[in-house]
């Protein structure tokens, strides 16, 4: 480490006097390069042969534009430039390698890519040799005036639209192999690998990371956050609209809607788990079991031909009952065990999750009573039909746009996520929510101020279970099957990862975490066998770079960045038997 640091200081001292000129030259050259051809053959995604930048070149171009900071000294510029230039360099380098790989050799890399990589390197060295920032970026607000509220509302809408656009673009980049019949061949013999397409997703992801980091270091994200907080209703309405409109952007493609609906299932469960873990600070490692209780109940009473019970209850009743039953399980498990502390509770919930999975696996008529069909699960759950005769299994035409049937289930998921989010936000700001946070921070102190900690912890546990049950019953109808494979410990762990990755105790965090964790393995398919390996490494890296999560709650962020940290119940577990004896 010290060698690297020494080399950096020495190199820095050498370059420092010219850092601005060097970086500026690099960024200008990089902008120019983005209009030069990056490949000598056509067909690489993003039209690398043309002179109009597309795909990865567009991302590099946008990141290169941050070079204006070399001229204008804004607060936080070194860190902002550092992120923008580093990510620009990585994207340029990766793209060049991908082009060379797909074209079978560096010969087929265009001049723009070569010069671009060098320019990006200069840009990065220049940015990193700048003097340290002496000011951190302030949270800015718009000047007071008649139009302020209107402009701020428009900004909120734009933020929602940008989020939707990022999602649509990310999802829209194909993750399957290149379609047959298109001329992706070079010289007739050499064919492109799937990798070329996937490189697009990778560079898009890197671009998003670089852009967000650079903007947040310039204080743009914090300022926008302050604005959206003042106009949260506008933001919520705009976000909901964006989510509702999404199927219309997909041109009748059912696949992406199915993925979006699956993300919805995952996100709803993650938000529910966030109540238990993020607000009340109870580590639940078997949350998926409550979800499973709801899913199995819904599967069994919804008229599936594989169900052993021949009843078909109306959908609304099914959701209610699933939620109630899951909540009941929550109380049954929680009542005797919630006085356990920290990790003892975690292992009890883990045990409950395993017991649930083993039980549904065994209730197949041979190892136990026949109820769940064992490993096969309850499948062929019929499509939902609303009382008016509206069937979820049929394609519909709305406003002249043909919508695949998946859109119906997608909208159902949007409603579910909206309900769960509302429940979370209302709870978090209520007296109960504040009591949960107090318990999370310091249970003894909370009890001393007159909070009935046992009852409130049980409430958190039961509410989390209830929401999971409701989410499970909806998801059973979306995926049309309830099978033990979906309720393993790994699923619980991934849900927890979504909550922690996104940032505990915030609803945006859980949504973002769920989206990232669902999309990442889906989009990493090009790595084939290495997919899970990369996924594991990415988990480690994200936690190392941002241990407080992507969107931490304000309180947690303060705790984490203050020296010594706060007395957080999750940071320093109370009452462990602290003696190796």
């Amino acid at each position, binding site marked *: 480490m010290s060698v690297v640091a020494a080399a950096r200081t020495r190199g820095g001292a050498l370059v420092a006097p010219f850092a601005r000129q060097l970086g500026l030259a690099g960024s200008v050259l990089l902008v120019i390069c983005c209009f030069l051809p990056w490949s000598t053959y056509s067909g690489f995604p993003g039209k690398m042969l043309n002179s109009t930048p597309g795909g990865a070149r567009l991302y590099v171009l946008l990141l290169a534009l941050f070079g204006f900071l070399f001229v204008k000294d804004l607060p936080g510029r070194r860190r902002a430039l550092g992120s923008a230039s580093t990510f620009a360099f990585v994207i340029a380098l990766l793209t060049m390698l991908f082009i060379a790989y797909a074209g079978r050799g560096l010969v087929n890399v265009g001049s723009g890519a070569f010069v671009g990589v060098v320019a990006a390197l200069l840009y990065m060295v220049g940015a990193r040799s700048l003097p340290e920032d002496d000011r951190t970026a302030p949270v800015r607000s718009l000047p007071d005036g008649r139009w302020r509220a209107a402009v701020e509302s428009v900004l909120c809408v734009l933020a929602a639209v940008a989020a939707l656009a990022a999602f649509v673009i990310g999802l829209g980049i194909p993750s399957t192999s290149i379609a047959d019949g298109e001329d992706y061949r070079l010289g007739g013999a050499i064919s492109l690998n799937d990798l070329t397409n996937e490189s697009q997703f990778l560079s898009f992801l890197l671009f998003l990371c670089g852009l967000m980091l650079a903007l947040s270091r310039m204080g743009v994200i914090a300022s926008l956050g302050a604005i959206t907080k003042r106009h949260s209703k506008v933001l919520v309405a705009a976000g909901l609209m964006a989510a509702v409109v999404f199927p219309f952007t997909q041109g009748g493609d059912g696949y992406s809607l199915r993925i979006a609906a699956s993300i919805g299932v995952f996100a709803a469960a993650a938000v529910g788990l966030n109540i238990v*873990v993020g607000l009340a600070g109870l*580590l639940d490692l078997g949350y998926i079991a409550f979800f499973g209780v709801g899913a199995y109940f819904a599967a069994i009473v919804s008229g599936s031909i594989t169900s052993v019970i021949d009843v078909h209850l109306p959908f609304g009743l099914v959701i209610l009952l699933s939620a109630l039953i899951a909540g009941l399980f929550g109380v049954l498990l929680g009542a*005797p*065990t919630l*006085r*356990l*502390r920290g*990790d*003892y509770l*975690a*292992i*009890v919930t*883990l*045990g*409950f999750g*395993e*017991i649930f999975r*083993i*039980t549904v*696996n*065994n209730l197949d008529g041979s*190892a*136990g009573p026949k109820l769940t069909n064992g490993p096969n699960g309850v499948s062929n759950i019929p499509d939902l039909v609303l009382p008016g005769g509206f069937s979820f299994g049929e394609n519909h035409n709305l406003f002249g746009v043909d919508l695949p049937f998946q859109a119906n289930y997608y909208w159902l998921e949007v409603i579910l996520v909206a309900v769960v989010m509302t429940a979370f936000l209302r709870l978090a700001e209520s007296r109960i929510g504040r009591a949960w946070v107090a318990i999370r921070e310091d*249970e*003894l102190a909370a009890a001393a101020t007159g909070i009935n900690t046992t009852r409130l912890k049980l409430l958190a546990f039961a509410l989390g279970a209830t929401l999971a049950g409701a989410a499970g019953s909806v998801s059973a109808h979306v995926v049309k099957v309830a099978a033990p494979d979906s309720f393993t410990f790994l699923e619980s*762990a991934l849900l*927890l*990862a979504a909550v*922690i*990755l996104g940032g*505990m105790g915030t609803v945006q965090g859980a949504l973002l975490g769920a989206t990232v964790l669902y999309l990442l393995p889906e989009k990493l398919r090009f790595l084939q*066998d*290495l997919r*899970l*390996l990369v996924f*594991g*490494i*990415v*988990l*480690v890296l994200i*936690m*190392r770079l941002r*241990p*407080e999560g992507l969107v931490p709650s304000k309180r947690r962020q303060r705790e*984490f960045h203050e020296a010594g*940290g706060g*007395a*957080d119940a*999750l*940071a*320093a*577990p*109370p*009452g*462990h*038997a*602290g*003696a*190796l*004896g």
Partner: protein
Amino acid sequence: MDLFLQQLVNGLVLGATYGLIALGYTMVYGIVQLINFAHGEIFMLGGFGALTTYLALPSGTPAGVALPLMLLGGMAVSVTVAVIMERFAYRPLRGAPRLAPLITALGVSIALQELIRNFYPRAKSARNFPQLVNPDRRFSLGGDVSISAPNLLTIVVAVIGMVALSTFVRRSRTGRAMQATAQDPDTARLMGIDTDRIIVTAFVLGAALAAVAGLAQGLRFGQVDFRMGFITGIKAFTAAVLGGIGNISGAVLGGFTLGLVEVMATQYAPEPFAGGAWKDAWAFVVLIVVLVFRPTGLLGERVAARA
């Protein structure tokens, strides 16, 4: 009666494996309060390390020479990976919110499994492990009760490992430093203890014992599998909690208890909940029941909450 005694023996053998792995969980937890979910993978790597050592030996090496070398090889792999893991995945997160290292552990666990699956030759499914200790050779323990040679070896090695660790922690200077760090890391540092080194020591000792369990597992079942660490790891963690996490004797007791419960439940649980399909469920039921009545595990002490 013979059947009961036979199952008792089987349960003790199973429990010895759990106990060996549980020691690693409990030591690391006792010192840094980290649930190291990747510890199960360290156990799995121990098995693969032993296998690799065997494959590198000239054919015809007598078992008496091969086994100790395999043990050393397995330990070398486990310990190396554990040290790297501590240094690059966990140490940077010290002082971070406690759940962050948990996700890191999960990531490490997934990555290690996939590393073996993808890069160890022919490890996509279970790989055969040399049957150096003949499993058909059985020693009679009176009546119809007997124990097979690999099982006997497992239990002997496990007990030696447990006693050695316990003596080390109680008697040696480093061991006492470990206890001090577990009780109060800040004061321990004031007393001149290099706590970073102590934490690494805990990882190293845990990994070495897990490698013993990995070798034993290979010898008993005649195969090693990249998936074998995950479930066994969760069970061993359960054993550590059952005994009272952070407590070394507790981990051993918890391991044996869990092993016995599993074996006995398979045999004696009321129909239709008997049989192998339900054994894990019984293990967790017993865990929950024990924790309801003894909230800090079998040997865990009731400690006042830290402010």
